[in-house]
């Protein structure tokens, strides 16, 4: 079967899948409805300071699974909703950054630098339009890069890497993520090591489960949803509650200065921001393709490079970056938005999640079953249809649909979100806490799962207090089982050679890179993000 056949099957799976409702005789599939709903929710979540895309993805996932069940038919609607949230939150993060000088998502911090001054000048609407156009462009560009690159990378991995090299590649990915994310490489490595330790509980090939201390509820290991939601979401909630405790009594000064002047984007503005959008999209996509480096770094680099470019070009009397100019918003928003698509390159081609959003896509695939992100997805079978590949192309189709929704109505919706910033945290946090615990119980239906989750939540809180990033923990937890399995397979496939990791030049090269990444970043004294 040709690539074009799969492409068509993927599009068909999204558009001609089970019908949700029909308008004027045209039936709209559930998958499309879910992309749309997820996107709108994403914008709401992104515009609310204190909420972020991953949080909404985490809470909605178990609820989605309980609605759609565990059949492969559930994959596209669930992925659609999650992708919608991911993209919506990226756009939405700019709203409070521009209007109230509070970034809705961490990566929108740079947007405040030029966005808020523009709002104070009475150009809030124009600033939001610039943010929207740049964000949507960056996002679309990044998705195209994903669709082109992921299949080739996957095929390369399958064709050239044997089991020992696959083991080495996993070690490199984990070391890279650990060294790059978080306060310092050492802290990242601690985080990853703890993740591997947690992943070891109850697993392994022996019939007697290890590290369970005799507790039967640990015999199948910690359920993945308790670790992920506990460390990522509950940990964050506990930390936020503590911050609220310290800040109580202090009045948060809310600025409310936006003056809604009609602010259409003229041709001149578009021409001015165009080079910055292109530059930042390239930067964001390149950064996004490396697992672990997030959109915050992309935004910083995009903004800085835009600033340098602008400083060279402008006349002396023209306003610079930071004075409230559209170029500043464009450089930031294009960069942080172009990370999301490229971040799925390692997910789909290697099965390695690069950021929190990707973690939830892997979690969804793992819970539902029938789709195992990794190189085997892109097997272009000739005789029969490879259903995973159809899902992959369905995923690409839905990303493009989400972009289309973004281009058409995303801007309008985004500009109506100003009110979300006024939701007080003391109302928001209990709701998140309740939703998260409910979501975990829905999926695991055991009280033990809630205790595990609270335990992981405390761990996440302690890690945050010690400035240890929880992301390497989660990624190591997810990859731990794969690493052990692949290593065991490589060991037995080489006839029990204990030095299998050094059995080929490729494998040795990958290990040298692992050591180099950690050594170089440690020498710099701090991580990139």
């Amino acid at each position: 079967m040709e690539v074009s056949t799969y492409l068509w099957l993927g599009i068909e799976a999204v558009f001609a899948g089970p019908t949700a409702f029909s308008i004027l005789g045209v039936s709209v599939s559930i998958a499309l409805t879910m992309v749309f709903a997820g996107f709108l929710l994403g914008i709401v979540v992104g515009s609310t300071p204190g909420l972020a895309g991953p949080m909404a993805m985490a809470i909605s996932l178990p609820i989605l699974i309980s609605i759609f069940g565990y059949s492969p038919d559930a994959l596209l609607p669930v992925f659609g909703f999650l992708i919608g949230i991911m993209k919506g939150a990226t756009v939405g993060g700019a709203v409070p950054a521009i209007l109230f000088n509070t970034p809705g998502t961490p990566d929108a911090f740079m947007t405040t630098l030029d966005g808020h001054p523009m709002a104070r000048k009475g150009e809030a609407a124009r600033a939001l339009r610039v943010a929207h156009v740049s964000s949507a462009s960056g996002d679309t560009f990044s998705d195209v890069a994903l669709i082109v690159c992921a299949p080739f990378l996957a095929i390369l991995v399958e064709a050239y890497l044997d089991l020992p090299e696959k083991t080495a590649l996993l070690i490199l990915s984990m070391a890279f993520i650990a060294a790059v994310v978080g306060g310092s490489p050492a802290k990242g490595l601690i985080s990853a090591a703890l993740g591997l330790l947690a992943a070891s509980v109850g697993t392994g090939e022996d019939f007697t489960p290890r590290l369970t201390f005799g507790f039967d509820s640990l015999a199948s290991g910690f359920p993945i949803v308790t670790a992920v939601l506990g460390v990522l979401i509950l940990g964050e909630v506990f930390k936020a509650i503590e911050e609220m405790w310290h800040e109580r009594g202090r009045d948060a000064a809310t600025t409310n200065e936006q003056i809604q002047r009609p602010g259409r984007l003229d041709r001149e503005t578009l021409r001015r921001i165009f080079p910055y959008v292109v530059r930042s999209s390239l930067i964001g996509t390149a950064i996004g393709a490396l697992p672990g480096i997030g959109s915050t770094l992309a935004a910083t680099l995009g903004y800085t490079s835009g600033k340098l470019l602008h400083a060279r070009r402008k006349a002396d009397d023209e306003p610079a970056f930071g004075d409230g100019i559209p170029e500043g918003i464009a450089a930031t928003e294009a960069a942080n938005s172009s990370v999301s698509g490229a971040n799925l390159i390692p997910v789909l081609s290697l099965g390695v999640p690069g950021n929190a959003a990707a973690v939830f896509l892997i979690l969804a695939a793992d819970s539902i079953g029938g789709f195992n992100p990794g190189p085997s997805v892109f097997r272009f079978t000739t005789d029969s249809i490879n259903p995973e590949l159809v899902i992959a192309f369905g995923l690409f189709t839905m990303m493009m649909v989400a972009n289309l929704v973004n281009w058409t109505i995303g801007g309008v919706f985004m500009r109506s979100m100003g009110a979300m910033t006024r939701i007080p945290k003391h109302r928001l946090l209990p709701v998140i806490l309740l939703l998260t615990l409910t979501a975990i119980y829905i999926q695991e239906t055991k009280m033990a799962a809630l205790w595990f989750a609270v335990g992981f939540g405390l761990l996440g809180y302690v890690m945050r207090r010690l400035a240890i990033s929880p992301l390497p923990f989660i990624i190591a937890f997810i990859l731990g089982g794969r690493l052990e399995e692949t290593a065991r397979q490589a060991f037995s496939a080489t006839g029990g050679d204990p030095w299998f990791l050094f059995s080929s030049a490729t494998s040795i090269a990958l290990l040298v890179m692992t050591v180099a990444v950690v050594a170089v970043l440690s020498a710099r004294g701090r991580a990139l993000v």
Partner: protein
Amino acid sequence: MRKLVLTALALGGMVAANISSAFAEWAPPGPIKLTIAFRAGGGADTQARLIAEHLEAEKGWKIIPENVTGKGGINALKALKDQPNDGTAIAIVVTESLGYNLVAAKNSGLSVSDFTPLTTTAGFQMGVVAKTEKGWKTFSDVIEAAKGGQAIRFGVMSPKLDDLAYMLGKAHGVEFNTVMLRGGKGVMNGLNAGDIDVGWGAGIQNAAVQSGDMVNLASGLSTKLSISPDAPTMEELGVKFNADGYFVFVAPAGLPNEARTALSEALSSVAADEATKAGGMIKKAFGGAQIIKGDELDAIVSAAADASAELMNAAE
């Protein structure tokens, strides 16, 4: 006298009512918890969920499926053991879980007498599979390659199949590098990626074999494979053990006979009926239903346990 007649009539009526209720359809006293020993989304999981879905619609029972994976079905059996034995708790595993895996998991605290087998649904079309492009036509070609000095990687998906692969090599004086993979899907991916040379397939290979992309080099069963009748059986290859096995529904020990019969009937009739979604799927994925229940099933389960102990000793 009249009073006596009335009493007799009333008594008779009560007896009749009792008899008729005994013949009335058995129904579970509450929702049935169905423990599935397989990963969500695979063929085994789909089969179980479809059977449950059909029974919910047909009988009005409420069935709550839950996946408890790992340790070759031991985790699922552990979860089942202490559930009520009134028909509200059942599990689907493979006969290998009740046989080889229970024997091997010495510290599990479980034994086969802790369970009541209900019915099988389908058997395995277990074969030794290779990609056609390897050029091997039958199992002796693999032996020849191994004797010629080539290291042969043999993909397996359970400790029992690991032992059987070892025995296959031992019978011909060669040693394979057996690689443990996750389920039949893992073996197929391993073959396609070139990570392994041959591997066990329990029926997942059928489509690829029929299209000529893969080939069954040997049957892992006591019988010939239905789609590859030329492939030699384990016995013909000089190994007295085999991978005969079935998907099997079980309940905790002490299940009343009435409940056992009703549950076995209900489950097996859905699996056997190709017109149902479940039956159709079983036909497509496992080559059709194979139903064994009652005493015959008990005999198979206990024979499997004996053979497993022997296989373990032989492969030591």
